[in-house]
């Protein structure tokens, strides 16, 4: 079994850990700053971009980043100013990116590229190279450092953007920083779960953690840990059942989210309030 090859296995575990940290971390900001629509659209933009990269034999990382940026650039100001409801924009951008992705994948020359196509669609731990791991370690370190330095502002904006602005914080700059970092993280995470499912990695650990923790300082630590946990569990499940890693990770993390909603003290309190 190819999985037992030590090198591949080590890269797979590292990929799960690094992606888990990054998406779990950025997800908290995306969810709390209510920019999920942008995160969602960027994910599928990156997917279309990666597909273009495969089709044209360019580096899929570069094209994915480019498409994620273009999407953020298009949707960001709209969602920011609320001129058009973000949902409306997402509903247009999502099928557009999907259509582009499938067109690009159809155009892909068939010889020897099936694994690359598969990695863009479903993710593929096997195609993860040592270089990928190095990129991800660098990205992880850079992201943690940046967040450490602007934590105070992010903390305030996650509570209430208008109040943060009223206290003299340049909220737009920090929201755009989060959008930018999320775009980069999404791009680098495509190899693990594929472009169709990447958004779940951003959304699930953060939303699950926010369901049961009531201290933002704990949320920001636990959500990345949960991301690592679900990624590794998903990897294990995929090894045992011989199923695609990305799908298994998303299934596990959705299960975790469902359970966290069911046991959430917040939800219980809400029900109690309604009964009263």
């Amino acid at each position, binding site marked *: 079994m190819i999985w037992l090859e030590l090198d591949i296995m080590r890269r797979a575990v590292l990929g799960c850990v690094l992606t888990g940290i990054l998406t779990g971390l950025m997800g908290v900001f995306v969810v709390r700053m209510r920019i999920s629509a942008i995160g969602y659209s960027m994910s599928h933009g990156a997917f279309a971009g990666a597909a273009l990269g495969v089709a044209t034999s360019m580096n899929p990382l570069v094209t994915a980043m480019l498409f994620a940026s273009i999407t953020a650039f298009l949707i960001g100001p709209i969602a920011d*100013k*609320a*001129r058009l409801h973000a949902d409306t924009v997402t509903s247009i951008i999502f099928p557009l990116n999907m259509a582009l992705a499938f067109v690009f994948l159809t155009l892909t020359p068939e010889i020897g590229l099936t694994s690359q196509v598969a990695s863009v669609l479903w993710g593929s731990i096997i195609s993860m190279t040592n270089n990928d791991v190095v990129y991800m370690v660098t990205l992880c370190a850079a992201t943690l450092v940046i967040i450490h*330095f*602007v934590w*105070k*502002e992010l*903390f*305030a904006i996650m*509570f209430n953007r*208008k*109040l*943060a*602005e*009223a*206290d*003299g*914080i*340049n909220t737009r700059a920090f929201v755009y920083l989060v959008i930018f970092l999320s775009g980069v993280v999404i791009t680098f995470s495509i190899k693990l779960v594929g472009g169709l499912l990447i958004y779940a990695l951003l959304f699930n650990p953060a939303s699950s953690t*926010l369901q049961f*923790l*009531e*201290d*933002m300082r*704990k*949320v920001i630590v636990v959500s990345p840990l949960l991301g690592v946990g679900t990624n590794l569990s998903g990897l294990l499940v995929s090894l045992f059942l011989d199923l695609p890693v990305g799908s298994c990770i998303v299934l596990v993390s959705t299960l975790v989210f469902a359970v966290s909603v069911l046991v959430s*003290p*917040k939800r219980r*309190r*809400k029900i109690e309030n309604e009964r009263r």
Partner: protein
Amino acid sequence: MIKRINICFTSSGSTFNEASKVKDAVTAQESAIVRIEDVSTVYEGERRPAIRDVNLTIERNELVYVLGPNASGKTTLLETINGLLPAYRGRIFVFGLNVRNHGRRVRCEVGYVPQDFMVEPGEPYTAFDIVMMGRYGKIGVLQRPNEADHERAMEVMRLLEIEDLAPRPIGKLSGGQQQKVMIARALAKEPKLLLLDEPFSNLDPESREMVPRIINQLHEEKGMTTLIVTHDIHNMMKTCHRGVVFRDGRVVVDETPEKALHKLEVMR
């Protein structure tokens, strides 16, 4: 510890660039804390201005009431003054600084208590977190709150008698307690100008007496300037200097509080 980079407007002025030093000189000559010239504010997507052709000057240390029926533009006035609503015609100067160009610097020195601010029960923040946030703009980018900042935030909470709420999750406090936390947040930044939007609506009678007392005290000790939007005028009548009455977005009365109140009642 690195010396704090002061991106905000402070009285020391030592960390400022030359351009703002010139502006400070202007401020020193001008006693008006707020000067509003022919201002009309339009909300995005609306055609009718929410406030129109407003002219208003508020001197240092003044305590001004803003009165008027619902939807007359009181909240819009406050948010235009601190630059949260940038789509306005006319000119606004706060501390002698044009809000259009120096909005963020102005906001570092303006305490704002928004109307009806309530938080969901599960919000992952404590009351102390919220009060401390009031100082964030002033503390500056890349800087962390230090001992003095903590002390200042606690001091304000003690002043409002909510120090025992400090570690409690904000969402689990009563409406009145949350309102006091919001007032503490605005005061924690040691504002030169305080904008309060119906700050007494959820308070019990005891606090309705206490909050004005604290504001008066800060007026005397720190030379603060305050604008209060409210319906509950009786507690503060003795110390209030002026009453400004809004109607359909226009200032219709700018008088002593007694006269303003009288005219408001006649209007009804």
